[in-house]
């Protein structure tokens, strides 16, 4: 075949004769062939590996480091977990502890974490594109790949994919998970754990069945408009309602309310009215409020504007502007009359005490709160509109309301939110296009995503938002497909119910609000699961009559419930028989009668060898430590078998307790037990003499 003349001329013009053309063409071919290796040579990973070799060559342990270093593309392949990670290609120094001082990436040493990179890979925790070998592709999502690398503040979410329980190393995740249950997120959004059980809410939104007995339409209006204006710690979010929406919802709630069976005691009401203008009564009421340890659960703002008190119950700073006096005296008398499911205990207050307390609380008002609330008389249209709004905003997801059915799936399910593809998300303007930025923005400013969205506005701090994002990111597709051997289940939820008469008393006093028994209950007060093995019956009876604190440095105390002797007997009998540890034989050691030599040895061990006085007080004149409970009466409080077993291994009896295990020999533990059991306390000894 002959080339056209024009091409031949062109060839001759550029290359001359055929041989030269051949030479040039060969050269072009060589250059073309060289493109691939050259590209490879200038690839990111190659550059970083050369950089690493330069970096280690100057160090004193260069020989060792070079021996550890493997050039070329590295890969961690874990088919079981779906991990193909080439990150170690550039991150060469992950395991080099001697390179601790290098802070420039990609040569940083990986901090000491409980998992090995060979077993879990990198993208399991950090996300990103494990298979990529260029910086851009590995860390961002530029192509069709979806997962950008997680910022440091969201790393804990990855622990939560497998670990369903709380971990020491993941405070943010623990906080976020707690908040999902505590702030009512799971009332509207279903979030399922790996085993398919939905996360349960731990908050207790009040039922609104008898709301008209409790408060006024005006207060409901003000509350709906801005719950945090009433109480800065209110967990109810702001639904950003228009004036007429708040008006109509409050009208409907009052109209739908049915009367509760409240016990009205005129004596208490009269007393309550007197408190306002009587300084002496006010002082009495304030001290009754203090003695009843209301502040263990309820906070009140002090003059400096700081909240003082616990957060189990609602803040009481402005309670007088909220509730009706008749309702309050009935509530203080027995809260179960109004709300059988409340966590507030039934104190057995006298009529006078009820009057004093309710009068004291009615005095806590804020005149500004309802100053500008003027509502027209209710109309049937308002009620009808209010009912529609209550359904639209899903109020019944949290609150029980007459005539409204609880919506089953009100908001989107979030079980797989942690791996939701970015292309399925509708971003608000100015929100970076990543999943974690989307979730963060949605929690911070839900209404920025569209005015018709119903998600309310919360007032979270940055730390709280970070916690929530961590908790939500942990609910990923990857977590759901994880092999069961790699996951750690959450501790089982206990539905323990104490039985019989004592069970009813425990429910009435709401012991579970503060104490845990058999895995159910709060953490404000000691776990009572083994209380029957631990304490002596006489002490327990005395304690119910007059609960003195055992820990001088503690603000929160057990309140006095004014129980009758019969009630105390029922409770004590139940605790002594049922709350028994199988590990402890209460009768294996005597309560008294230890040899003086043994007691003396115990005393020496206590003060000299083990320095127990650092934390405990036995001799009130010289001992000062107050981390652990005061031991002046320990011999008449605890059983010897419990003391002995506790000394041997405190964590075995109460996991997570502060007292360290000492590895005592049996003899030492017995001597210390003898010494402690001889501490009967002065009052008891005097009582015996009499």
């Amino acid at each position, binding site marked *: 075949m002959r080339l056209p003349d024009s091409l031949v001329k062109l060839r001759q013009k550029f290359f001359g004769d055929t041989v030269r053309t051949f030479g040039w063409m060969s050269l072009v071919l060589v250059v073309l062939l060289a493109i691939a290796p050259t590209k490879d040579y200038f690839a990111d990973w190659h550059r970083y590996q050369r950089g690493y070799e330069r970096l280690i060559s100057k160090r004193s342990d260069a020989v060792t480091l070079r021996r550890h270093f493997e050039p070329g593309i590295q890969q961690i392949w874990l088919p079981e977990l779906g991990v193909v990670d080439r990150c170690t290609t550039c991150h060469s120094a992950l395991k080099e502890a001697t390179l601790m001082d290098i802070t420039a990436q990609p040569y940083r040493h990986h901090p*000491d974490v409980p998992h090995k990179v060979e077993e879990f890979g990198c993208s399991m925790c950090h996300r990103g594109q494990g298979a990529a070998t260029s910086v851009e592709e590995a860390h961002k999502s530029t192509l069709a790949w979806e997962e950008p690398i997680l910022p440091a503040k969201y790393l804990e979410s990855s622990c939560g994919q497998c670990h369903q329980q709380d971990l020491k190393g993941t405070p943010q995740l623990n906080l976020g998970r707690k908040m999902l249950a505590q702030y009512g997120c799971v009332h509207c959004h279903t979030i399922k754990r790996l085993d398919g059980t939905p996360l349960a809410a731990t908050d207790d939104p009040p039922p609104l069945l008898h709301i008209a007995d409790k408060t006024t339409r005006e207060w409901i209006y003000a509350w709906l408009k801005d719950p945090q204006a009433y109480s800065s710690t209110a967990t109810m979010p702001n639904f950003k309602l228009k004036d007429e929406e708040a008006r109509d919802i409050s009208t409907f709630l009052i109209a739908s309310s049915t009367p509760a069976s409240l016990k009205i005691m005129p004596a208490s009401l009269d007393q309550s009215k007197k408190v306002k203008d009587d300084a002496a009564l006010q002082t009495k009421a304030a001290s009754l409020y203090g003695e009843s340890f209301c502040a263990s659960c309820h906070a009140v703002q002090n003059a400096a504007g700081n909240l003082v008190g616990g957060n189990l119950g609602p803040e009481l700073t402005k309670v007088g502007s909220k509730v009706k006096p008749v309702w309050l005296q009935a509530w203080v008398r027995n809260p179960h009359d109004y709300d059988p499911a409340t966590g507030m205990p039934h104190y057995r207050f006298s009529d006078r005490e009820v009057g004093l307390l309710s009068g004291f609380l009615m005095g806590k008002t804020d005149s500004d709160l309802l100053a500008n609330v003027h509502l027209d008389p209710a109309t049937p249209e308002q009620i009808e509109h209010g009912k529609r709004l209550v359904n639209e905003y899903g109020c019944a997801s949290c609150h029980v309301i007459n005539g409204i059915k609880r919506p089953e799936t009100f908001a989107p399910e979030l079980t797989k939110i942690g791996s939701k593809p970015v292309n399925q998300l509708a971003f608000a303007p100015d929100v970076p296009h990543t999943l974690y930025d989307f979730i963060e923005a949605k929690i911070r400013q839900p209404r920025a995503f569209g005015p018709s969205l119903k998600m309310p506005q919360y007032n979270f701090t940055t730390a709280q938002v970070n916690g929530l994002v961590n908790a939500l990111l942990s609910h990923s597709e990857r977590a759901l497909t994880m092999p069961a051997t790699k996951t750690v289940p959450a501790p089982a939820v206990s539905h323990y119910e104490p039985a019989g008469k004592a069970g009813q008393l425990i429910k009435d006093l709401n012991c579970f609000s503060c104490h845990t028994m058999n895995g159910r209950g709060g953490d404000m007060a000691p776990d009572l699961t083994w209380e029957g093995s631990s304490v002596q019956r006489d002490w327990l009876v005395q304690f119910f009559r007059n609960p003195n604190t055992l820990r001088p440095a503690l603000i929160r105390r057990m309140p006095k419930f004014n129980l009758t002797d019969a009630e105390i007997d029922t409770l004590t009998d139940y605790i002594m028989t049922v709350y028994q540890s199988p590990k402890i034989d209460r009768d294996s050691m005597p309560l008294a009668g230890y040899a003086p030599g043994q007691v003396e040895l115990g005393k020496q061990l206590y003060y000299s060898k083990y*320095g127990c006085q650092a934390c405990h007080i036995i001799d009130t004149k010289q001992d*000062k430590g107050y981390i652990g409970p005061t031991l002046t009466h320990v011999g008449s409080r605890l059983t010897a078998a419990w003391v002995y077993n506790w000394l041997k291994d405190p964590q075995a009896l109460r996991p997570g307790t502060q007292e360290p295990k000492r*590895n005592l020999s049996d003899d030492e533990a017995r001597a210390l037990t003898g010494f402690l059991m001889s501490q009967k306390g002065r009052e008891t000894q005097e009582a015996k003499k009499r």
Partner: protein
Amino acid sequence: MKRTARIPILLAAAVSVSCSRQPKTFVLVPKPTAYGAAIVESSGGKQTAEVGTPLGQPVVVQVNDEQGNAVASALVIMRGPNGVAFDPAAGLSDSSGQFTTIVSLGTIPSRYQLTASITTKTGKAAELKIEEIALGYQEMVGSQLNDLHCARCHNQESTPERVSNYDNLEVKPHPFTEGDTLNKMSEADLTAIISHGGPALNKSPLMPPYGYTLSKSEIRALVAYIRIVSDPPYGAPGIVYAQK
């Protein structure tokens, strides 16, 4: 150098700046209406936080004049090492002369020195150095163990929730910030005294042993925490190799 020769250099510099990997962020600063003479810390220094997360309390600095009175509407600019974020990074002092900012530390567990600066009337800069500590995974686990087991005695400060036991002890424990003493102790010494109690190093038995309560990795985490909060900072001895 000829004037024409400079143009390509300037061009190259401009191109390299505009194309560099890390985009420079420019902070829009408000116009100050007053100038202070000195800047002092009000609160928020020496805090610890997990890497990449905001500090628990905001950093508050105060602008004063020569007499030590607060100056309002003076411009305060915050700067920090790579990875530190301020919200806001600059602003005017309020009516009580204070400027408040929320600080998120970087991703390397270490100390971060932040600088708060103002411009005085004469145009000079006055600076204030504030130190914050970012905790890595180990240090954070250590800090939680410290809260549970150590802080009641080793921290002199009391809070309503946690009353210090320091004053009640006959032999005073060393606060973990006491670098002058603790930096002299080796890892082995610290591990020994935590595991086996004070008597392990001939010290007071009031310090109980934690070796039966904490795991080895927990004790390592605690040592890492003690090292990172110590003041003056702890310098690791590094690896010493035999000379050739």
